[in-house]
Each structure stands twice: as C-alpha cells, then as structure tokens.
C-alpha cells in the first residue's frame, strides 16, 4: 500500500495533520473540479431551473405546456427520436460486419483501417456536407456520372431526412466499428474450435455462441449511436435545415436561442435541452450496465 502514502509527507520525514493531508491529496484536482462545476455542472443544473421559470423568474409549467402544445417542437422531438433509432439500427447492421472484416485483417492493415475509420468518424460537419453535395447532390459527381449511363436516374435529395440519414451513416458507422472492434476478439478461434469439436456448424455457432457473445457490445454501441445521433447539430445546420425540411430538437434549440422577440424562448430551449439530457443520461446508464456485463467475455 506504499502507493497511497503521501509522498510529500514521507519526503520530509514528518507527520502531517489530517487537514494538511487532505489538502495534499486533493489540491491538485481543485482547478479541474472548479472548471467542471462552473462550465458543465452549473449550466446543466441551470437548464433544469430555466425550464421551470418564466421570464420574471417565477415558477411555471408554461414552458413545458408550450413545448408539448406547439406542433413544431412536438414534431421536432418525434423526428429526432425516429432519426436516432434509424441511424442506430442501420449503423449496427452495417457496422458489425465491417468491424468483423477489419478485426480479421493482418496487424499492419488493421492499423491503417483503424486510422482511416478514425478520419471518417471525426470528419468536420461542414466538410462532410460539402463532400456529399459535391458527390451525391443534384449536380454532384456521382449523380452526373449516373446520368451519362441512365438519363432518369433517381437522385438523392441530401437536404431531406433520407439524405440526413445517409450523411449521418458516413461517420456513425466508423465510430461504431471502432467501438465494437475490440469485442470482435471475444469471438475467438478457441470458441469456434470447441464448438466444431462438439459438432456445431457455422450457422449454429453464430446463432448459439457468436451472436450471444457480441450482443451486449452491439446493444451498447446501438445506445451510444442513438445518443450521438439525436445530439447532432453541425450536420443539420450545415445542410441549412429549416422548419419545413428538417425539424430536429437540436436545430430548434439553436433557433430558440438565437431568435429574438418570441416570449419564453429560453424556457422552451431549456425544456428541449432537458429532454436531450434525460435521454442521454438514461442511455449512458444503460450503456455502462450493459458493458459491465459484456466485459465478462473479454479476459
């Protein structure tokens, strides 16, 4: 337990009082804690307060009633959740085989693949939207190339919800693949050999062993992708999302904060923010409890 002794006290060879010890143990974390309390915890708590206050500072439930009664915000909540579920599900369906293929590459190639996935996962929203418009937009490279062989080829409207999903997948799938990549090692050759010695075929192996081992990781990844998708602001903003074309919670929050004139706009923004916070915290709790169970399989 030498590790936990206070090195400063030991160095000078004298005992310190409990208060001095406390300071020596915790002082170094103080700037960090103050910064977090002031910049993250305070603002988050203030959102809760804001959502229950009118412009005079009195307690009210008007903000919440406005959010629920206003068809615009109601639709935004529904659209955000539908898009989140769609993205998370499609990402899992594409991401699991992708992670599997990457995990079975040789070491050098796997590093390169991981680096490439990292680029795609961190691509800035503005660059991504521009790249999509240049490639798949109405006058995009791929669209034009398609037209030369097939004159009435259907085009993807990147400014529609479908387009948004396609663009989200571009960075959610790599993110998901990087997240579940370590888990792919849990479906090991040992398991496969043991199963085939017992007479299991490929289908039976995957159904009874492979997928059950991977399931908690995939589910945990699904939850994270849902949280990240509903919280996206940059891509919808760069797409020029308006109330008519793209109506999402994050865009509503941004509009409410920046618009002037409308009453109790901060209150309504706070309500929507609080909804996002509750969804995120709940999902994070699920994510951690799932992963704790899943880690039994990675020894």
């Amino acid at each position, binding site marked *: 337990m030498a590790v936990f002794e206070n090195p400063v006290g030991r160095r000078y060879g004298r005992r310190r009082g409990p208060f001095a010890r406390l300071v020596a143990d915790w002082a170094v974390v103080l700037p960090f804690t103050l910064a977090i309390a002031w910049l993250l915890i305070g603002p988050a708590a203030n959102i809760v307060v804001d959502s229950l206050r009118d412009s005079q500072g009195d307690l009210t439930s008007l903000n919440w009633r406005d959010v629920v009664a206003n068809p615009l915000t109601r639709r935004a909540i529904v659209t955000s959740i539908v898009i989140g579920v769609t993205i998370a599900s499609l990402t899992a369906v594409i991401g699991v085989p992708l992670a599997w293929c990457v995990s079975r590459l040789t070491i050098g190639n796997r590093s390169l693949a991981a680096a490439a996935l990292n680029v795609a996962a961190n691509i800035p929203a503005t660059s991504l939207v521009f790249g999509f418009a240049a490639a798949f937009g109405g006058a995009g490279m791929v669209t034009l190339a398609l037209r030369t062989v097939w004159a009435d080829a259907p085009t993807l409207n990147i400014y529609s919800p479908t387009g948004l999903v396609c663009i989200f997948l571009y960075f959610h799938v790599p993110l998901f693949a990087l997240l579940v990549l370590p888990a792919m090692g849990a479906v090991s050759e040992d398991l496969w050999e043991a199963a085939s010695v017992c007479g299991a075929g490929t289908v039976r192996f995957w159904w009874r062993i492979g997928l059950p081992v991977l399931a908690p990781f995939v589910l945990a990844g699904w939850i994270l992708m849902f949280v990240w998708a509903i919280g996206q602001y940059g891509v919808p903003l760069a797409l020029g999302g308006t109330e008519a074309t793209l109506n999402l919670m994050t865009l509503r*929050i*941004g509009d409410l904060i920046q618009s002037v004139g409308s009453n109790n706009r901060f209150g309504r923004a706070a309500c929507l*923010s609080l909804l996002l916070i509750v969804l995120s915290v709940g999902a994070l709790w699920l994510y951690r409890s799932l992963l704790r169970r899943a880690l039994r399989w990675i020894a």
Partner: protein
Amino acid sequence: MDRLTMSARAPTQNRTSGMAEAAEVLAGPRWLRAAALAGVAVYGALPLCATALYSLATVWRRKPLPDSYTLQWWASTLTDPVFLAAIGRSITIALLTVVAVNLVVLPPLYWSHIANRRIRPLLEACALIPFVLPGVVMAAGINRFVGLWPLTAQLQATPTLLLLAIVATSFPIYLWAVDGSLRAANVIALWEAATVHGAGPWRTLRRVVVPSIRHGLAAGSLLVFASAMGELALARLITGSAFETLPLWQLRQLRGTDANPNGMAVSSLLSLAMLFAFSFAIVLGNRGRVAQIAPTAAKD
C-alpha cells in the same frame, strides 16, 4: 479499462497451423471480406474525391468530371485575408485548448495514479458529462449560466468563454488517451523507483513520466486539437459571427449569400489533410493502437 482500448493486436497470436485453419474458416471467405472493405472504402472516398476535384475545377457542367483544371481557387483562398483570419482564430483557440487541457487534466490524472486513487471516479464521472451531452445543449447552458452574475456576465459571447467551453467539452478524449498510456507505462513502478532515488512527485512527472508517456500525450493533444478546430455548435451559439472561426467561415461558404463552393473545397481539403495526418501519426506513434474513443464500464 484497457480492455476496450482500440487494439490492433490479433485476437490470437502465434497460432498453430490447425488454429490458423480454424481462424480462416471462422473469419469467412476472404474475397467476401475484401469486397466488403473495398465497397466501404469507395463509398468513403467518393465525397473526398469530389471535394478534391471541386477545388481544382474551372467549370463543371453536366459531365462526370470537370471541364478543365486550375490552381486559381487554391491561390485565391490561401491569400484571402478573411479566410486566413478565420483559420488563424481557429488555430489559436485549438492551441490554447491543448495547453489548457494539458495543464488542468494531466496533474490530477497523474496524482490519481500515484497518490490518491479516489480522484479517479471523480475524473471519470466528469468525463462522461461532455461525452453524452450534445454540444448545442452545452453551448446554450454555458452562455446562460455565465450571464447569471454580473462578475462573469462580461464573459458572455466572448472568445474567452468559447475557449473555456471548448476546453471543458473536449478534455475526455485526452483523459482516456493519456490514462491508457499511464497504465501501459506502469507509472506506479516508475514513481516508486524515482522516489527511491530522491525525486519528488512533480520532478518525477517532468523528468520520468512525461517522457515515457509522450506518445499518449501527443495522441491526446492531437485529438483535442482536431476536435477544437472542428467545433461548430459552441462557436456558433457562444460567439457567432463576431468571432468567425474556420467552421463558421465554412458554414458561410456553404449557405450564405456570398457562397463560394470552390473556396469551401480548398478549406475542406486542408481540414481533411490535417485529420489524415493526425490519425495516421497517432496510429504509427502508438504502434498500431488508435486512442480509446469511449469510456468503459470496467471498474478498476
């Protein structure tokens, strides 16, 4: 914790030939895997290729490829004072963010390893907040909260507040990257050895620990730099056009009345080049490991 880091180790190394065969059967047909990866790579490369062509095209009408090519957009964008000012602001903010994150996060993280383990849960819990809370929510909350008191209200909508907000929301990625390398370097043994030789904890950090985790520090700093450069939600909602960073400039090229797609393509390629360089540098520097990108549930 380390079990969920992005590891490039093979699941089972030093296989016997029988195992190698089993591995091959388990992995599935090689051609199918290669085709899937190639398909994803092509899909991923298409927007980047289109961006590159846009930055070089003179006119591009009704044909899959531009009519002809020019370097004029590169020259005009790289000499545009508005663009240069925007990229300068972004680089300044990103560099200051890296410095601040190193100063504020590394000491407590180091201390949690060598002296006071109870700091760890605190650090981890704090790192989860920006990890799950959407940037737009943080931006709205921070600007409102700061405005509550006269003393801090003057910070509202200033570049300083933007910097603070970016520091507070981008540190988790640094924390996870450096935490992994502190454990990999066996910092407790290093510290014990240094103490035996009479070095104090901060001298040990400077002279022994920092040199031995330099890859982790570099990876964490690069990730923070890249995320600070690309920060859009905070920049838009905290300062807005009063302090135009690179993403805000790009947004104006995409949507504004003075939209300039070719200039946008040039700046976009610059951002992408930086991202590629950072990603590959991290992977090569860390011997095949990509830094951890998400927290784990393991309690240790």
